[in-house]
């Protein structure tokens, strides 16, 4: 066990305590020791003694790392969020599945001083490598280490396998699953279908960073229809096109989860039904096309690849068209360096452009944001269900 009593600077997380264990009982015992040392004191900035505060009491975060480098990246992100939410983080890294069963855990307590006058707030991190068969029975490893009565969030960075044994073991104990659909292989759409089934199977919430990243796009599109003159056109949309960045135009080469979410969001909010699911074209640069229905109106939708230096699958433009009687509305939302710009044209007459700032969010921002907005998110659930129907 290593103990640090160095003074902390406000807002700067620091490693206060670390230890190592080779069994679940050993880990539990080490975790207990942190808090039995409750009289632990640290020297404050003025040489005074400061009590290191108790652990924050908000949630368990279980990270299915899969690979060592993912685990290290995740550990760094979570460490940066010390005191900001996860009370206990378990980073689970199954290894050597064919070898003998073994466990190795690094146990750490990171603390942060919110301000000079406040006590330190700490959270625990267990970096757990499960070798051999112990990596096949993650429920037995994770369940005893969870802080009871606190919600459990499972973060599955990289490519999740929702049909895998890990999923079957861990998801029943989760209240929420975090993924990033924009990082999945191929076009990413197969994962959407599997993911959409999770809420019903396991009674959990899903947060996809890919959907979160588009918040400002949704705000931009929604704001356009806040104008009383344009709101009635919302029920008369007759075309939705989303342009995304691609390098070679071949279907399946760019992850289109983000552009697909735009269509799914609009369709779910506007009560549209899927007539023909989105299907890739057979030739390069044709993208994906499908058909929705809104009342009696058929609404063609497309995802169009555009050659661009932006990362593959990045949304570049969302175009909406509506016809109401003889009147026509054309809306184009375009990405620029720091945000999106909305251009609306009503019957050939341009309306004032509107810009929305939307700097790119880091994974740590998205994680913090997701954790902070705990609770049922019916919109995400609807979007995900619609996305699954769109690609079924």
């Amino acid at each position: 066990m290593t103990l640090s009593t160095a003074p902390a600077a406000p807002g700067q997380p620091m490693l206060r305590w670390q230890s190592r264990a080779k069994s679940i009982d050993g880990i539990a015992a080490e975790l207990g020791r942190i808090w039995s040392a409750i009289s632990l004191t640290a020297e404050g900035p003025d040489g005074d003694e400061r009590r290191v505060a108790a652990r924050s009491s908000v949630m368990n975060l279980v990270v299915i790392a899969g690979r060592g480098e993912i685990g290290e990246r995740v550990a760094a992100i979570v460490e940066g969020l010390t005191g900001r939410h996860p009370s206990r983080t378990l980073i689970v890294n199954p290894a050597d599945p064919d070898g003998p069963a073994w466990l190795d855990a690094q146990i750490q307590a990171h603390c942060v001083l919110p301000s000079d006058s406040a006590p330190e707030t700490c959270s625990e991190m267990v970096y757990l490598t499960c070798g051999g068969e112990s990596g096949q029975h993650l429920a037995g490893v994770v369940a005893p280490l969870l802080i009871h009565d606190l919600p459990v969030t499972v973060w599955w960075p990289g490519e999740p396998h929702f049909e895998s044994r890990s999923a079957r073991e861990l998801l029943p104990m989760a209240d929420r699953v975090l993924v990033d659909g924009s990082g999945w292989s191929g076009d990413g759409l197969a994962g959407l279908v599997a993911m959409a089934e999770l809420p019903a199977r396991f009674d959990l919430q899903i947060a996809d960073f890919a959907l979160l990243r588009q918040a400002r796009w949704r705000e931009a599109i929604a704001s356009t229809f806040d104008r009383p003159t344009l709101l009635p056109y919302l029920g008369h949309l007759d075309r939705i096109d989303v342009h995304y960045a691609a390098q070679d135009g071949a279907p399946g080469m760019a992850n289109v989860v983000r552009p697909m979410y735009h269509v799914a969001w609009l369709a779910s909010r506007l009560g549209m039904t899927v007539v023909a699911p989105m299907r890739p074209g057979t030739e390069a640069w044709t993208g994906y096309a499908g058909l929705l229905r809104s009342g009696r109106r058929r609404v063609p939708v497309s995802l169009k690849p555009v050659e661009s230096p932006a990362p593959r699958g990045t949304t570049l433009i969302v175009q909406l068209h509506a016809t109401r009687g003889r009147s026509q509305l054309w809306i184009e939302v375009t990405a620029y360096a720091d945000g999106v710009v909305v251009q609306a044209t009503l019957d050939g007459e341009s309306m004032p452009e509107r810009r929305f700032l939307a700097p790119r969010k880091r994974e740590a921002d998205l994680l913090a944001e997701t954790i902070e907005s705990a609770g049922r998110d019916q919109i995400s659930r609807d979007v995900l269900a619609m996305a699954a129907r769109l690609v079924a």
Partner: protein
Amino acid sequence: MTRAPVAVPQPRTIREERLARDGKRRRPSHHAGANPLREGLRLERVPDPHVAVLFGATGDLSHRKVFPALAQLWRTNLLPADWAMVAVGRRPYDDGTFRMDIAESLHRNCRVQLDEEAERQFLDRVFYHRGDFADNELYDSLTAKLESMHLEHETGSNLLFYLATQPSAFPEIVAQIGRCGLDHERHEGGWRRIVVEKPFGRDLDSAKRLNREMLKVFRESQVYRIDHYLGKETVRNLLVFRFGNGIFEPLWNRRYVDHIQITVAESLGVEDRGAFYEETGAARDVLQNHLLQLLSLVAMEPPATFAADALRDEKLKVLRAIAPPTRQDVARDVVRGQYDKGWVAGVAVKAYRAEAEVDVESETETFVAARFEVDDWRWSGVPFYLRTGKRMAKRASEIAIQFRDVPHRLFEDANTDPQPNLLAIRVQPDEGILLRFGSKVPGLGLDIRPVTMDFTYGTAFSTDAPDAYETLILDAMLGDQSLFTRADEVEAAWSIVTPVHDAWLDQPAPAFPNYAAGSWGPDDADELIQRDGRHWRRL
């Protein structure tokens, strides 16, 4: 604070509902009214593009609070990209020198510093406009400037006026805005709103006059009267705590509550605001607004909806249920004080009468404690003890709900009597909620000691809570009046505080100073509560 959810289009007839449920027909696409794309976006909502016009831009409040709050909103992308500000003041600045001045303020007062680029972008949107508030020329040139800014920044003619001036300037500015037609809202967007800083009047008559002047030009739905306490995270959480949890509300009444204490204590003195404070005093500065607002939030009935007016209607009912005190009531139930020299946080501080710009024979109160009763079905017979003061032992604001004692002493053999339960809501510092209950001390005997369950924001949510001004300014930009006081609320509060002042005027000069700086106020304040067999909480 959670805003009211946007209505989702629903099937209108039983047949539509049945068909929709069976999946045979889509839900009707009836978009008259609510924007269905808005649902679920409330946390991301960015106000419409607009120009903010800040009167009193060179003043202390603007530098300490308003600009830092705006800069934080800019930093977090909560201001529209097409946002601009006209900063109106008397001092001889131009855009460049004013921006330099604001930059310094931001460095000093921002809770999170902006990066260089974000700061430049923010400052580039601030334009200085010099003039005298009483001069027609200021408003004529401002009108012309705003016209060109609306075109240049494409702000859809939306205007947010912010009066951060001395209250005496409010009527003139409002009248001039009306003269120039800048208050007129337009059919195609083009909203006009005005944010007004407290104090809103200095007694009931002046508040009524001011409301009359304000409402000659603006409609009530355009007026946002700021009481920054209502924007504080803990105060907003009070509503969630009361109405978002099932276990507290059943206890929240005369049957279980013995009394309630609300404290807003400051360790600071009047600083460099001696002249202002001489005319104001603790009753006008804090009791009339912060304390009575906190009281109304604690005592109000659950509103039917979370709409601004539903909330404010309930708060108003509480204020109207407090009888305006008579002369006798004031003599018995209100204590005033003024601080003498003393020691605060280990530093010797001077007496109020020795502060700059303060009369050496000043009779202005720097402390007030009062006992009120809310005469309604829920609270009849439950006293509310309120106190506020400057140069007190520490800075602490708290609402304490003291529950009644258990009806029957079961543990007669216990060495210690159990103390009644207490629920304390700490507004500042160490924002949080504490529940005290009795517990048996481990051992062979039967000792009962009070223990606490303590929720501290810092350990649950270490996220940076927004400053109250950020919350309130953003709400005004979004058109949400929930956290702003309405004209009738202001007048109801004055109808409680004005009789106190009137009674004081009739009394002989008080024996000021009557409490030492660094104490918890005059002895009379202790007697006020001890008379009822209670005591102030030690904070």
